């Protein structure tokens, strides 16, 4: 089972990376989501996989003899919730960027230091002077 889990997580990682290398902002967001799933699977497999033994304390029997490790589960629980927060924020942010710039293509947003607009303005000015 672990082997299959590893393959699934590996595929999720690969597809996630592939998607964040795309030009479309929405695809990048999809990539982030996929990476989140993959990370959760990775964490889940950090402890031995066990079937039917949730980390619960029985009112009668007390601590069971066999139980799944609760620590990775607690971590994943946090991760799921946080990644939802990130997703919600990212969706709204992308919507806003799209509304302002009118493009969803990251290649149109590659200026680092100076905004592209001011570069264009500068070159326009130079042309005018010439």
């Amino acid at each position, binding site marked *: 089972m672990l082997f299959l889990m590893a393959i699934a997580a590996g595929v999720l990682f690969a*597809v996630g990376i592939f998607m964040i290398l795309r030009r479309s902002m929405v695809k990048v967001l999809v990539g982030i989501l996929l990476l989140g799933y*993959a990370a959760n699977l990775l964490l889940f497999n950090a402890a031995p996989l066990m079937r039917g033994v949730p*980390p619960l304390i029985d009112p009668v029997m007390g601590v069971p003899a066999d139980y799944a490790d609760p620590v990775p589960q*607690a971590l994943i*629980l946090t991760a799921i*919730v*946080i990644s939802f927060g990130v997703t919600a924020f990212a969706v709204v942010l992308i919507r806003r960027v799209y509304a302002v710039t009118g493009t969803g293509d990251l290649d149109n947003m590659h200026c680092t230091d100076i905004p592209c607009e001011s570069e264009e303005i500068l070159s326009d000015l130079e042309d005018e002077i010439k």
Partner: protein
Amino acid sequence: MTALSITILAGFLIAILAPFLTRLMKHRAAFVLALYPLAVVMQLLALQRGSFTAPSIQFPWVPSMGLWMTFTLDGLGFLMGMLIAGIGTLVILYGGEYLRDDPYLERFFLWVIIFMASMLGVVTSGNALVLFVFWELTSISSFFLIGYKFEYESARAAAWQALLVTGAGGLAMLAGLVLLGQITGSFEINQWLQNPKLVQESSLAPAAFILILLGAMTKSAQFPFHFWLPNAMEAPTPVSAYLHSATMVKAGVYLLARLFPVLGGLALWNQVVPWVGLLTLVGGALLALGQTDLKKLLAYTTVSSLGGMVFLLGLGTPLAVKTAMLFLLTHALYKGTLFLVAGGVDHAAGSRDIRKLGKLAKLMPFTTLAAGLAALSMAGIPPLIGFISKEYVYESTLYYSNLPFILTGLAVLANVANVAVAGWVGIRPFWQQPEQKDEDLHLHKESVWLWIPPLVLAITGLFMGVFSQGAAQTWVAAATSSVLQEISKVKFSLWHGITPMLILSIVTLIIGVVVYLTSRTLIPGLAAFWKKLSFVGPNLFYSRSMRAFLSVAGWQTKILQSGYLRYYIITIIVTAVTLAVVTLATRYGRLPNPQWTQPRFYDVIFIVIIITSAILVTRAVSRLATITLLGAIGFSIAILFLLYSGPDLAMVQFAVETLTVILFVLVIYQLPKYTKSNYPIQANVLNIIVSVAGGVMMAVLMLLTSAVPSNSTLAPYFMENSLELAKGRNVVNVILVDFRGLDTLGEITVLMIAAIGVFALLGLKKGSKSGGNR
């Protein structure tokens, strides 16, 4: 000493207050601010009654690291201090008038006083690191003063150049001082001076010496670092007179003199220092002869004179050291005067070109007098102090054990140039007819505060020559004693009888006058010659290396900061994969065998759903299809959680998955559409290779980690204490809300911030770019 060092340090406070005072009193603030250096002069003169020394005092700086702010005074510090504070008083008075209507006068006062306090700090600090701090402060104030007329590109470039050259040298010097500190185990300069053997026997000493020499060479504009000083003439003239002639550039000379007892005994000292000095002495003099600008003429002769001082210290005989100290004093007196005169001429005539200036004597009689006295001193004519100084230079070279005639010959050559330049700057503009007519000159009369300071300096030079057995003799004796670390007697007089030195002086003067008279042909000829040679000059090297530096910076920024998200991510993934592979290949000979259980039939179904959906996501052409596929993956993972003992995980995953799908569906039509992006084939192949590599690495790592037997002590602890300590039976819940409750609080905070962000972004109107609900 306590009082003196408090006065000196108070300068920084006064400097900060100076701009406010300037706003209040305009240029008249100079009269108040000049009281600061005057107070220092008074205190120094009071100490003169003793033996020029003051007991050192220490303020704790970082006592736990053995760092103390030590201040001390000896003959050398006294001589430098008198020059700094004395000329400083005159320069502040002069500057107030020179920059009278300048809107940035307050900045001049601010930085000049900061410089003054730092420079006084340099010459009174007894701790090498304190000295370094003040040293760098003088570089910084020099930067701001050179760039005073910041509207001009040339001023900014010159300021930048001076800062880079002296700053780099300062760093080298710091390294050298730290080495000396390592050798001796102390940063107290006094400790060094008392155990010169300790340093001289160390194998690190040559390295320390070279590094410190670099600091001194850059600061004192020695060849090949001399080029920044003439360029620094962009500064207002009072600054040039003060920093770049009389005081700051002498800091390097001071440093060499200060460490002479420690480093002077090294064999390298005699092999390097005199040659550096000699090269600068002769080179500066010859460069000066090709100039027509008053300030440039003075700047190059300053370079030459600084070379002379370094040369004399390099010779290292008691006579040479004595001469260096006398020359230090003399040079400050006449060169400071001539700079101030040049400023006055510039102010009155509106030009600094010696070819255009002439017949100014009637217009500015007092300036003419000051200029004449200083020029005579510079040319070495009795009874001015410059004469004594020149005699001593010749005596030092003539009686040196090695190559005396060559050294003397070169010294004569440099002095000939000095005679000619003294004439060009101090005599010619005032008495001769101008060579060229210039209609642009607007002559007006000299103003009082532009001739009093140079005249005071010039008359000091006269008195020191006539009464040479007074102040000059005692001060130079005291300075020499502290450089040589033994009591030295000095006896100056104007007349020694007919000596070889006197004959040399007369010869120098005659040749100098001839050179002076041939200026019409000599200057353009030499200027053309130097221009031809400029391709090997260090100035060109400087500008080339600056340009190369910038283009390298641009090139690497273009590579590292492409601005495309995917290149950053590819870099990260490739780095991570490479590091993981290298580590696995080198650190672990035998990898552990992963062990796994048999999967059940429906496990396989969900795994297959996940894998197929994930691969389909890459091919999806519509946004809706993507969301559906994501939902399939999310719900499948939730079921896997459920099957493998994570009921809480499953519940949360179901809830969040549902919410995510709803969220997407709500905003989907406001998101940008998928467009066909035209990737070049190679780029796509690269992306696929990188992502597959990343996925494979993660899968392998996952298998390997699970093969390591987990002997977590956390799980048993939480299981056993969950009910007992936290009264909860669901251990995962108890961990979240109780054992790690604070983490969960953090998580809630993150969600809150995200929610506020979402709310704020949704609130923005569609077209508004700057935010807010307008």
